[in-house]
C-alpha cells in the first residue's frame, strides 16, 4: 500500500514534468514557427491546458516533499505533544477544504462531460478532457492529505517534516526549493 501510494504521487509528479516539457516545446515551436509561417492551431489553448495539468498534477508530490509553504514561526517551537495535535488539526482542515475543492472540480468536469461543453477557441475540444489533469491532481492531493492524517494520528512523524539543513549544499537546495 505504501509503495503504491508513493508511486502514485511520484508518477503524477513525473506527468506534471511531462506537461512542463510540453509547454516549453509548444512555446518554442510557436515562437520559431511564426518566422516561417508555421502555426499550431490553438497552440495558446493547448499551452494553457498543459499549464493547468502541470500545476495541479504536481500538488501531491509537492505536499509530500514538504514544499507547501506554511508559517512555521509558532509550530516549530512547540513541544511534541501540542505540536502533534496542531499538526492533526491542520491536516484535518486541509483535508476538508481540499476535499471540498476536489468534489466541486469533479462536478465541474462531469458537467462539462454531461453537457458536452466545447472549448471556445479554434480547436473545439470537449472541455472535460483538459479538465481531467486539474481534477485528477486535486484528487491525488486529497488522497495525500488522508495519508498524512493517518500517519500523524498513528503518532508518527509526518512525511513533509524535514530536519534543518546542515551543509552549504543542503542550504542551497532548500533555498532553491523555497522559490522565494
Amino acid at each position, binding site marked *: 500500500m505504501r509503495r503504491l501510494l508513493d508511486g502514485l504521487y511520484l508518477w503524477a509528479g513525473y506527468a506534471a514534468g511531462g506537461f*512542463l516539457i510540453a509547454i*516549453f516545446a509548444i*512555446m*518554442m515551436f510557436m515562437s520559431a514557427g511564426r518566422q516561417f509561417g508555421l502555426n499550431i492551431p490553438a497552440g495558446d489553448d493547448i*499551452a494553457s*491546458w498543459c499549464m*493547468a495539468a502541470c500545476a495541479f498534477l504536481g500538488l501531491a508530490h509537492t505536499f509530500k516533499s514538504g514544499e507547501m509553504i506554511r508559517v512555521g514561526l509558532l509550530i516549530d517551537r512547540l513541544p511534541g505533544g501540542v505540536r502533534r495535535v496542531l499538526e492533526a488539526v491542520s491536516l484535518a482542515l486541509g483535508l476538508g477544504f481540499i476535499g471540498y*475543492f476536489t468534489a466541486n472540480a469533479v462536478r465541474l468536469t462531469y458537467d462539462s462531460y454531461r453537457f458536452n461543453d466545447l472549448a471556445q477557441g479554434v480547436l473545439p475540444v470537449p472541455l472535460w478532457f483538459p479538465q481531467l489533469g486539474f481534477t485528477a491532481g486535486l484528487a491525488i492531493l486529497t488522497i495525500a492529505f488522508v495519508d498524512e492524517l493517518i500517519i500523524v494520528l498513528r503518532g508518527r512523524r509526518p512525511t513533509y517534516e524535514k530536519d534543518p539543513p546542515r551543509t552549504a549544499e543542503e542550504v542551497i537546495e532548500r533555498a*532553491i526549493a523555497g522559490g522565494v
Partner: protein
Amino acid sequence: MDLIAISGLLLLVLVLLLAGGVWIAISLLAVGWVGMLFVGEVNNPGYVLATKIWGNAASWELAALPLFIWMGEILFRTKLSDDMFRGLAPWLNWLPGRLMHVNVFASGIFGSVSGSSAATCATIAKIALPELKRRGYDDKIALGSLAGAGTLGILIPPSITMVVYAVAAEVSIIKLFLAGFIPGLLVMGLYSGYIIVWALLNPRKQPPPEPRMTLAHKLRESANLIPCGLLIILVFASLLMGWATATECAAWGVLGSFAIAAWSRSLNRANFWMSVMGTIRITSMIMLILAGASFMSTSMAYTGIPVALANWVDGFKLSPYMLIAALTLMYMALGTALDGISMIVLTTVVVLPMVQKAGFDLVWFGIFLILLVEMAEVSPPVGFNLFVLQTMSGKDSMTVARAALPFFWLLVIAVALITVFPKIVMWLPDKAFAEKVVPKGRS
C-alpha cells in the same frame, strides 16, 4: 454585522489559521469560504471555486511562471556561480571596497537569470563568502552585502514574485519586468555606494589589493561569463523590443539555459530531471496559493469588503505619501512573519483598490511591493536570506541580522526615492509600450 466588523472577523480567522501552521493556500481557501457565508445570494460557493480556479489556472500567460522557474533551476546546476567570482573580481579591484563589490554585481547578474532571492543569495554566498574570508575582508560588510544583494533576485527580472503580483493585480508581466530594471540598478548603485563610503571611512579594515593582471588575462578569466551575458541581453532585448510575449521569452530563456549548461558540460540526465521536478514543486506550491487567493478575492468581491475598506481609508484623507508610509509600515510588520509571495496574495485584494483610489499606478505599486518583500527578506525573524547566510557562515542569527541592517536601510531609501520620483520605475515600461502598437494577446 457591518462590513468593517466582518473584515475584522475574517482577519482574525486568517491570523489564527496562519499562526496555527495551516498551509497558506488552505488558509486562503478557508477565509474565502467563511467570507462566502456572509453572502446570501451565492448558492454554491464550491462550484464558484472550481470554475474560477479552472479559468485562472488554464492560462497561457501563467505558463511563463514555470518556464522562468525552470530557467533558474537549470542554471543553478551549471558552473555559472563558480565562474562568476573569478570573472568579475579582476574588474572591480580598483574600487574602494574592492572584491566586496563582486557580491553586488554577481547577485545582479545572477538576478537577471534567476527569479528567486534566497537562491541568488545562497548561490553567490557559497563562492564569495569563503573567498572574501580567505583574503581577510571584513565579515560584517561581506555578510550584509550578500544578504542585501541577494534580494536583487526578485527585483531584477525575471522574477517569480513579480509574476505572482502580475497575476494577482492583473497587470502585464512584461511591463512589470521592465519596470524592475532601473530600480534594480538603483539598488545596486546604493549598495556599491555604501561599500565605497564604508571602505573610505575604514581604510584599516581593507585587505591588500589583488595582484595586477594584464587585460588579456582579465578577459580570459571572464570568458566563461560571456554566454550568460548573451542570455541576459537576449531575454532583455526580446522583452524591450516586443519580439516575444513573456511566455515565449521564458521559453527562449530555457533554451538558452540549456545551451549554457551544455557548453559547461553540466547537462546530464540526472540534472535534467532534477531541474524538471524542482520546477514542478515550486510551480505547484505557487499555483495552489494563487488558487486559494483567487477564491478569497472572489469571495471578498461578493462581500464588498475591498471597496468599503478603500472608502474607509479614503475617509481619513491621507495624502498619497502618508498612505504609502502607512502601507510601508504594515508590510514591514507582515514581513516579520510571512514570505513575499504570501504577503502579496494576502493583501492585494484589499490594498489595490485603496492604492488605485489614491492615484498610484499598479505597475509602480508592484515594484514598491517587491522592494518591501526584499526588506522582509533581510529582516529577522524569518528573513530567508538571513537564514541562508546564518547556516552558511556558522554565525548566530543576531550577528547576521545586524550585518544586514545598513542594507535594509538602503532599501528604505530606495522605496523613498521611487515614491518621490515614480519615473524611476515607470520610464522604461512607458517608453517600451508607447512606441509600438501592442499586438493582440501581448498585454
